C-alpha cells in the first residue's frame, strides 16, 4: 500500500520516457532539416560576404546594416537604402491589400457556404478545397495566361478591335496583387467558414425581433461572433503573402520585387549571403510579430467566451 504512489510515479515517468522516444524521429528530422538551419541563418547574418557568394568567417554587422542602409562605394558613407525600403513597403502594402481583398470576397463566400443546407454545403466546400490543394505555381501560371501580353484578355480585346496594341498588365503591382488574391483566397475562406459554421442563428433571430436591420445584424451580431475566424484567416493570408516568392517572381518580374525575391537575389546574383540572411531573419521577425498578435487575440477571445 505504502509504495503505491511510488509505482504510479514510476509508471508515469516510464510513460513520459516512452513518449519522448516516440516523438524523437519527428523532432530530429525537423531539427536537422528546418529549425537547426534557421539558427545557422542567424549566425550567417553576422558574417562577412565572400567574394563569390558564401561567407568569410569574419564577424561583421554589414549584413544587418545593409537591410536598411546603403554604403556608398566611393566615400564609404551610409545612406538609406531606398530600394530596400521600397521593397519592404511594397511587400507589406501588397500583403495587407491582399488580406483586405480576400476578406472582402471571402467573408460573403464563407457565409454563403455556411448558410447552405447540410447536403449542398459539402459540395460548395469541396469547390473551395480543390483550388486550395492545386499547385500554387499552376494557379499563378493560370493568372499569367490571362493577363500577359499574348494572354486571354489582350488577345480577345485585340481580336474585337478594342485596343490596337496589348495593354501591359504583367509585371505590375496590380498583377502581383491579382495573383496573390487569387492564390490565397481559399486560405481566407476555410477558417472563416469554420467559425461561421458554428454560428448560432438564434442570436440573429433575436436581433431581427428587436428590429435590427440586416446590416446592423451583420455588424453587431455576426461579425463579432466570427471574429476569431476573421483573425485566423487574415493571419493565414498575410503571412504567406509577405513571404511570397513564386507569385511575385512570375507576375512581378525583376522590377516589382517583394521581400522573397530580394532575399533570393542576395543568394544569386547579389552574392551577399549575410545580407540575405539578415533580410530572412527580418522577415521571420515580422511574421513572428504577426503570429504573436494572433495568439494574443485568440487567447483573449477564448477566455472571454469560456
Amino acid at each position, binding site marked *: 500500500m505504502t509504495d503505491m504512489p511510488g509505482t504510479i510515479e514510476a509508471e508515469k515517468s516510464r510513460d513520459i520516457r516512452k513518449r519522448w522516444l516516440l516523438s524523437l524521429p*519527428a523532432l530530429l528530422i525537423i531539427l536537422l532539416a528546418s529549425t537547426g538551419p534557421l539558427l545557422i541563418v542567424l549566425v550567417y547574418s553576422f558574417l562577412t560576404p565572400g567574394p563569390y557568394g558564401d561567407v568569410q568567417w569574419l564577424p561583421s554587422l554589414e549584413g544587418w546594416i545593409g537591410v536598411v542602409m546603403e554604403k556608398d562605394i566611393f566615400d564609404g558613407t551610409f545612406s538609406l537604402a531606398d530600394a530596400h525600403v521600397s521593397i519592404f513597403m511594397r511587400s507589406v502594402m501588397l500583403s495587407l491589400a491582399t488580406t483586405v481583398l480576400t476578406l472582402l470576397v471571402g467573408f*460573403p*463566400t464563407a457565409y454563403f457556404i455556411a448558410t447552405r443546407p447540410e447536403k449542398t454545403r459539402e459540395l460548395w466546400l469541396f469547390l473551395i478545397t480543390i483550388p486550395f490543394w492545386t*499547385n500554387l505555381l499552376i494557379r499563378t501560371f493560370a493568372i499569367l495566361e*490571362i493577363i500577359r501580353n499574348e494572354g486571354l484578355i489582350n488577345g480577345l480585346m485585340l481580336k474585337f478591335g478594342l485596343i490596337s496594341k496589348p495593354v501591359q498588365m504583367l509585371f505590375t503591382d496590380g498583377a502581383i496583387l491579382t495573383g496573390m488574391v487569387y492564390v490565397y483566397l481559399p486560405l481566407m475562406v476555410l477558417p472563416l467558414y469554420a467559425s461561421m459554421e458554428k454560428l448560432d442563428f438564434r442570436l440573429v433571430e433575436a436581433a431581427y425581433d428587436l428590429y435590427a436591420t440586416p446590416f446592423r445584424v451583420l455588424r453587431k451580431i455576426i461579425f463579432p461572433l466570427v471574429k476569431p475566424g476573421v483573425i485566423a484567416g487574415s493571419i493565414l493570408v498575410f503571412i504567406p503573402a509577405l513571404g511570397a516568392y513564386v507569385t511575385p517572381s512570375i507576375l512581378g518580374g525583376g522590377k516589382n520585387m517583394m521581400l522573397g525575391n530580394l532575399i*533570393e537575389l542576395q543568394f544569386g546574383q547579389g552574392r551577399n549571403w549575410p545580407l540575405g540572411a539578415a533580410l530572412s531573419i527580418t522577415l521571420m521577425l515580422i511574421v513572428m510579430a504577426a503570429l504573436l498578435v494572433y495568439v494574443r487575440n485568440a487567447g483573449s477571445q477564448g477566455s472571454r467566451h469560456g
Partner: protein
Amino acid sequence: MAKTFSIRRQRGFTTIAMACFFALYLPIAVLVFYSFNAGESLASFDGISLRWFTKAFQNQQVIDASIRSLQIASFAAVVATIAATMAALATTRTEPYRGLTLKYAFINQPLMIPEIVTAVALLIFFARVKIWTGYSGLGYLIAAHTAFCIPFAYLPIRARLENMDLTLEKAAADLYATPWNTFRYVTLPLLWPGILAGFMLAFVISLDDVVITEFVKSAGQDTLPTYMLGQIRRSITPEMNAISTLFLLLSVCVVTVFFIVNRKRV
C-alpha cells in the same frame, strides 16, 4: 419564387459568392481549355488536339522531373507519416507533461516560418554539408521535404487520435494483449483513416513544393514544379498547359479521395 424573409440572408452575399467561385475556376478552366488547343496562341482556338500532351509525354526532361517528383514525394510522405504518427501518439491522450508544449512548437515550426526563409536556411546548411561529405544526391531534397511534411501529416492524425478515447485500448490490455498487439489490432485500425489522410496531405504538399526545392536542388535535380517554373520564366508554350492539366488532374484525384476518406469518419 416569392422572396420570403430569411434571417440568414444578407443582401449581395450570394452574388459575391457566385462571382468568387466563378473567378476561382475561370483561370483554371482557361488553362485546361487551351491545353487542347491545336494552335500555339491563346488568342485563338484552332480546334481540339492532343498534340501538346503528346509533346509533353515525349519530353525527356518532363518525364525525368515527374519521376523525381514522385520519388521524393513518396519517400518523404512515408517517412513523414510514420514520424508524425509516432509523434501524435506521444503528444495526445495524456495529461500535460514537461516538454509537451515544446514538442508542439517543434512539430509545427515548419508551418510558422515563411518558406523562403527555410529555403535559404537549407541552402546555406546543405551547401556546407555537401562540402564536408561530398554527397550531392536526392537525399537533401528528401530530408527537406520530410521535415516540412511532418506538420501536415501530423494534423489529421492528431485530430483523429483526440477523438478516440482509451477505453478500447484499456479493454485490450485487460485481456492480456501485449502493448504491441494492442497497438496493432486496436489503435492502428481505428487510427488508419487519420494516417491515410495525413499521408495524402504530406504527399500533395511535397509534390507541390516549389520554393524549398528550387533552393535545395543541385544541378539536374529538377522536380516537375521547378522545371515548370524554369520554363514559365523562359518561354511559354501550350505544352505547359498540358503538363499543368495533368498535374491538376492528379491533385483533384488526391483531394477527392481525401474528402471521401475524411467523410467516412463522421
